[in-house]
């Protein structure tokens, strides 16, 4: 549990999301061994690591899906504690999961507003709890338009969409409600090449609209394609941060697998 290192010469802006010295043990296995993490405003931060490097444990800690044994998490510089994913969501952190986490028989606007439905004004809403479907459809189509997802009818059941469009709905949902951070956990894992590219485009658009994005992926070319910085995780720690602009992917893989030491590169 070290304090954030002061005196960084570049004087970086306050990270939107920051973690210091997170430790998580499962019996004899140490999944997180004092990992640090920073997400800066307006960036796409890739998180890569071999299987067992602790990257999904790290993301679960950041999204509230598990509670770390030790360490601290800061949101906009203020320490926070997430007891569950709902907690994290309330604080403005939205997570898009890999396995197309949508209710397929519900339509697009119902999926976008699932768990956050808008009720009608007046007694119809307060007494009879009636939903304002028109308003939800209207707002849903605005959100989809913002990300330039060309779907005509918000009444379309999600199961009639392609895999990429479905993930588009999930991304639009995350982007619509996240106030601080969107976490994308392997968002292209279930998709083909063309659809993956669509989703990567969406991720860029979310960033360009001002929301920082954490992208966890096994797919190195994708991460190096979209990420502004890449957090490399190994054996439960962060071993390096690299900028894809001036770093070779093969070296990143070497660091990830331990063939090259992370200390050889300065943290950027």
């Amino acid at each position, binding site marked *: 549990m070290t304090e954030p290192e002061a005196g960084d010469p570049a004087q970086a802006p306050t990270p939107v999301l920051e973690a210091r010295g997170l430790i998580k043990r499962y019996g004899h296995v140490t999944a997180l061994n004092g990992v640090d993490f920073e997400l800066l405003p307006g960036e796409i931060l890739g998180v890569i690591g071999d299987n067992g490097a602790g990257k999904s444990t790290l993301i679960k800690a950041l999204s509230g899906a598990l509670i770390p044994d030790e360490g601290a998490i800061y949101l906009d510089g203020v320490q926070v504690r997430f007891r569950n994913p709902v907690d994290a969501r309330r604080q403005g952190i939205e997570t898009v999961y890999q396995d197309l986490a949508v209710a397929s028989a519900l339509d697009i606007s119902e999926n976008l507003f699932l768990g*956050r439905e808008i009720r009608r004004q007046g007694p119809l809403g307060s007494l009879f709890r009636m939903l304002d479907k028109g308003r939800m459809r209207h707002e849903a189509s605005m959100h989809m338009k913002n990300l330039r997802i060309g779907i005509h009818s918000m009444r379309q059941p999600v199961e009639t969409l392609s895999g990429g469009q479905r993930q588009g709905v999930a991304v639009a949902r995350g982007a619509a409600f996240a106030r601080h951070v969107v976490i994308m956990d392997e968002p292209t894992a279930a998709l083909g090449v063309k659809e993956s590219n669509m989703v990567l485009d969406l991720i860029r658009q979310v960033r360009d609209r001002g929301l920082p994005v954490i992208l966890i992926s096994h797919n190195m070319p994708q991460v190096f394609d979209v990420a502004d910085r890449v957090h490399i995780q190994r054996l439960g720690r962060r071993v390096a941060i690299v900028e894809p602009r001036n770093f070779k992917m093969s070296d990143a893989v070497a660091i990830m697998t331990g063939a090259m030491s992370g200390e050889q590169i300065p943290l950027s």
Partner: protein
Amino acid sequence: MGIASPMDQPGTATESRLRTVADSLPLSRIGPFLALLLACAYFTYKTDRFLTGSNLSLVVQQSMVVGVLAIGQTLIILTAGIDLSCGAVMALGGIVMTRQAVYDGVDPVIAILIGTFVCVGFGLANGILITKFRLPPFIVTLGTLNIAFALTHLYSNEQTVTAVPDRQLYFGNTFRLHNTTITYGMVLMFALYIVIWFVLSQTALGRHIYAVGNNSEATRLSGINTHRLLIIVYSLAGLFYGIAALLLVARTGVGDPNAGQTDNLNSITAVVLGGTSLFGGRGTIIGTLIGVLIIGVFRNGLQLTGVSAIYQILITGILVILAVAVDQFSRGRQQ
């Protein structure tokens, strides 16, 4: 329909709109309605005693009890669950209501509330066992089916309760509408269908019921307390079983410990015939009403035409398999 381009070619827009209309009226939606219409047309052609006000009223009266049980069953099946205990729980509720009033001198209306409370309690227990103890609904409700059955027979001493007070028979009372006799129970059943239609289609609770049956993990990750939701659904179903018990007592005039023994399967049959998927997440309450009426019309029509009742069971069996096959087929097409 590209995901990246803001607007697609206008040609595909009309096409996709047409397709949306076709998708919103799949076979599982219109099939049950067609089956009901065909059955009615057939029996109207076969006998002129079928399409009369008094006969149709009779069909509804005969369908009333299963109709109300099927409301609870629909809610549960939409969440991808199943309830085998509904008929037995209803029988227990009916016995409690009538015995409390007849033998224990409890005010008839209070006795109704106690009986209904017992049914809600069973629903609540089902819901808690399924969520908190992660037991499969089929097994849990098979257990509570037997428990309710045993309690019914222990509590009733195998005796039918007679001389039920009038205030418990209120919903068996009738009024006339254009020479057609209508019971208050029928009105109550239709009213309950309208209420549940509203809840399912117009409120967040209803949408959550569909969502949890569709993708329970995604629903949980959306911040919805799925355990609480399921417990509400099973308890609500228990409330409907209590109301069904009241209608049963009102219709038969007695508290019968042997009532409802096949009504669990009848209610599931009605739900499936109505186009609701046993896999959860899709179906309509209006479909269930149609499913209930299909069973009622076949039973009544075959009786009128002098065909053995066993054929009604045969036809119901075929229809059930047909309905499930249609559901399976339409799901397969969408994958």
